[in-house]
């Protein structure tokens, strides 16, 4: 194409500006965790790690900030439970839709995708409403106090599970589709039992997808806010604790420190899942 050099340069500048737009807020959130000042803003007063390790006010570091640490622990164990549950359910769904034939299969497939297009806030309130209706009914009819149906960790787990299962199902089904069924037939012909074929042939093949589905589910759960906000009880996960702090105390560099930990942590996990998807070539 003649005379397109100019255009190509403008194009490149645009792409460059776009990436600047992408990283600017992340850099800002990260950099001020290391500024020796009580406000996350300019001027730069020198490098410090106080916002991570200091144990005295007013610069109480992240490692000594009790509520933030508790929030982090809550997010961690909620994430592990939700990821394990949604990978298990996702595996069942993958086998159901890849291997089985049944009436109205395509309609059910659409139903499986639907949770992704329901806003998270709505998933949250609808599960809150249903759980409260059941709990009130049990209370008034049988005098049962079902505290786990009131806002709290069990409801957060259910709320996040409800849409993460769609993601894990799609990731695992994509890999199961690539599986060569003749491998299973060969193993069966050689006398292996169904269970043995599953554990020694099929599941090892699926492992990379299971692993990265687990990591994706864990990360999304850890970072989820909208659904969690509606279902949170007294044990708040990290995002809710951070949001509370932001609204009540305003921005303090300790929030920048949390941001750094979150960015580094999720970056590493994301990298791990990319590597796991790639390394053992299936063919």
């Amino acid at each position: 194409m003649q005379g397109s050099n100019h255009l190509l340069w403008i194009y490149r500048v645009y792409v460059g500006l776009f990436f600047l737009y992408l990283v600017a807020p992340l850099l800002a959130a990260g950099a001020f965790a290391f500024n020796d000042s009580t406000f996350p803003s300019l001027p730069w007063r020198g490098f410090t790690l106080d916002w991570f390790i200091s144990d005295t006010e007013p610069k109480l570091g992240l490692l000594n900030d009790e509520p933030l640490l508790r929030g982090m622990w809550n997010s961690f164990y909620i994430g592990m439970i939700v990821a394990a549950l949604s990978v298990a359910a996702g595996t069942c769904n993958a086998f159901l839709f890849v291997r089985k034939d049944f009436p109205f299969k395509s309609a059910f497939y659409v139903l499986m995708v639907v949770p992704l297009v329901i806003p998270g806030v709505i998933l949250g309130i609808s599960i809150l409403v249903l759980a409260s209706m059941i709990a009130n009914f049990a209370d008034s009819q049988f005098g049962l106090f079902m505290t786990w149906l009131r806002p709290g960790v069990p409801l957060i787990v259910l709320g996040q599970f409800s849409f993460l299962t769609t993601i894990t199902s799609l990731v695992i089904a994509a890999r199961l589709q690539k599986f060569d069924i003749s491998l299973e037939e060969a193993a069966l012909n050689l006398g292996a039992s169904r269970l043995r074929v599953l554990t020694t042939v099929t599941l090892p093949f699926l492992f990379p997808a299971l692993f990265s589905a687990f990591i994706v589910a864990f990360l999304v759960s850890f970072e989820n806010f909208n659904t969690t906000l509606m279902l949170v009880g007294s044990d708040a996960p990290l995002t809710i604790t951070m949001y509370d702090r932001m609204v009540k105390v305003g921005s303090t560099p300790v929030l920048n420190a949390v941001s750094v930990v979150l960015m580094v942590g999720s970056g590493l996990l994301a990298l791990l899942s990319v590597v796991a998807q790639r390394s053992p070539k299936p063919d």
Partner: protein
Amino acid sequence: MSRDAGRLSLILLFAPFALWIGLLIILPQIGIGYISLREKVGINEYEFGFKNYADFAQAAVYRNTLFRTAWISILVTMLALVLGFPISYYIAKIARERSRAALFLMCLIPLWVSDLVRAYGWIVLLRETGVVSTALVSMGVINEPIEMLYNDVTVIIGLVYTVILFMIVPLVSTMQGMDDSLLEAGFNLGGSRLTVFRRIVVPYAMPGIVAGCIIVFMITAGSYLTPVLLGGKNSSWFTEQIYNQFITRYNWEAGATFGVLLLLFTSLVVWLGLRLTGQSLATTVAKDT
């Protein structure tokens, strides 16, 4: 495998699916539909009818919030498409093999960072004592610090930032499949750049465009953090109203009504989008995840 065993395994695999979709998706939606239709007339006394919806239609504040949320969401979707398309095209077609993967990965990095961190980053940059304002003052461009938060432009910038990656990912994966010879043929037959773009590139990328627009629109309309944090007290965003009714005022009937309305509205837009472009949910949204 005998037919009975096949049946049994089908039932065993179907059970978790049915429990999940039934108990966590369908029943809860019926639940908010039910609550939205009942009206409190006394302690534990309810009447059924469309009173809550009528109340909504009469209250200008709530109606306007829904319209505002709707038009900002559509605007953000358009902006994300217009701004994201050249980037996706660059990654898929122009960048060299090696830098392509790196650029794509760079695009994905913010995807892995929590909404909260991203909104917080914008706050650090844009508030009155923030980086941009301070830097402009020290460079002498402006005389005193200015507040750049709490207005619509900032909310839109923040929302586009939050969602644009969900536009780029499906676009790149669709356009990567496009054969360069298609473009060459278009040019050889005398097509101008614009014609080639309009007649070849856009139709080819259509499934990606539809998927991206649907995902972006849904995420924007359902977003909470970005409008509330960057828009401040007066952001009047619809999900904020739902939260206020449910948690702050404990008015579940009104909250459920708002929830149903938001769900109906977003579903309507998605359905229209799919109808107009002749795509289906299973071939667009499900494909790229």
